[in-house]
């Protein structure tokens, strides 16, 4: 069955993104890497947004990054979400970025430029999601 955006209900079977979600279910973070220009990109696209090559594959990510921006959401779009939560754009060290949550700290302590690493959490529908938490060791 297709969801509202034409997405497969079993996210692991979706074209383009199924392998990403399957990895998340295994507790692994991956990202598309172009085999021609070696750049990482996100969200997954059928062709590399830098060189338009269609020859790319998912590769493991270190899961380490920095907060590019973050905002504490107090009014969720649907009752499925428990506010407040911290929505963030995290720059991952292989040169890609994604929308995610900052977890593992109080919302007021989440900050731009903070070093973070991936931590898998449960989303409102029970699926695993790749959130990020403050790095515990000082670099």
């Amino acid at each position, binding site marked *: 069955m297709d969801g509202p*955006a034409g997405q497969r209900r079993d996210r692991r079977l979706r074209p383009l993104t199924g392998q990403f979600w399957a990895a998340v279910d295994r507790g692994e973070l991956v990202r598309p890497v172009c085999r021609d220009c070696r750049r990482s990109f996100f969200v997954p696209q059928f062709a590399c947004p830098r060189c338009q090559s269609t020859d790319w594959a998912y590769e493991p990510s270190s899961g380490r990054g920095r907060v590019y*921006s973050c905002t504490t959401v107090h009014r969720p779009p649907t009752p499925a979400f428990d506010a407040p939560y911290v929505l963030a754009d995290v720059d991952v060290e292989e040169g890609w970025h994604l929308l995610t949550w900052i977890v593992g700290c109080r919302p007021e302590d989440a900050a731009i430029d903070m070093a973070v690493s991936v931590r898998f959490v449960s989303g409102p529908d029970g699926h695993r999601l790749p959130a990020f938490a403050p790095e515990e060791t000082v670099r």
Partner: protein
Amino acid sequence: MSGSHPLHRVAIVGVAATEMARRLDATSAETSLRAALGALDDAGLAVADVDGVAARWPGPGGTVFQPGSADWAEVFGHPLRWVCDTYPQGVPAALDAAAAVAAGLCEVALVFGGQAGVMGGAAVADYTRPDNEFLACWGSLTAAQFALVAQVYRHRFAPDVERVAAIAAAIRNAGSANPAAVMAGRGPYTAADVLESPPVAEPFRLLDLCLATEGAAAMVITTAERARDLRRQPVAILGGGAQWHRQQYVNPPRYDEVWGLGADAARRAFALAELGPEDVDVFELYDINTYEVVRQFEMLGLCAEGEGADCLWEAGIGRSGRHPVNTDGGLLSYSHIGWGGPTLKIVEAVRQIRGTAGPGQVADAEIALVTGAGAGAQYYNVMVLGRG
């Protein structure tokens, strides 16, 4: 104007906006039609004159296969020469319609749309909840996407929060004075009221953010030649431009990519108009939130990056300030109506130039700037209007 550029050979000759409310007892189709007929009446034209349409088809009835402007041909009872379904509202539709009229593809283009009977009891309108698979799972909403941009701005420049809030208060006070506004008679608002309103997505509080309401808007564009024989003072499209950075609400917007979004479009629009941003008498800016107003003044070059809030505080954005902004109360307080919000900006700008804008009329307004979309949406468009 010389008349040598195609855009200078057309004019906006009719505009209309229906009643605006949190919820109207009508359908989107009925309300859209009312706006369309209103704009034709304003121009002194009839349905039979229309040979070009840019409008969403909300149903009921019509086709289920790519519904759009052609469905309106059925309602109007005669064939059309031109339709535009890509972005049938606001500045992009006005520019597309103007180009079609200038090229002779049609002579009378009608752009219209809105919504009614659709707003439910949800915290936010459904179109602000993009269901892309990398957004929806995180509880993202449009306000939060814009907040990610504003947060980087705050981190780098630490703007005076009271001066930012004063922008929302000023626009909302313009809406208080506009009897047609959804928020008519509410207020007056102070910066403190804005800062004390409930938080939505940091830094935005409820009063920093636009409405989600019902109503419809319309405009009619024809040749400058035909405009001379019509009822109203024609309004000229002096210049315009658009930027499509990327598809909206797929990847989060990045401050470093989008804070200046629109600078190229504005530069081209003003070059075509042979004017500069400092020549604008009235600004009808897309005010989805307060920081977008700050951003647009910085993007236009009227304030340096990081200084927009102070700059606007000193200049004044009320109808007698140096930079009058959103004289009808804007999306914050007048109305924001789905597939019609961007067209409302043009309706107010046209009325300002005609001198018929009501309580928000700016004395001797000759040049108006109209804008659409914004940083969080990752596309943006501008149009410079003047007397035709």
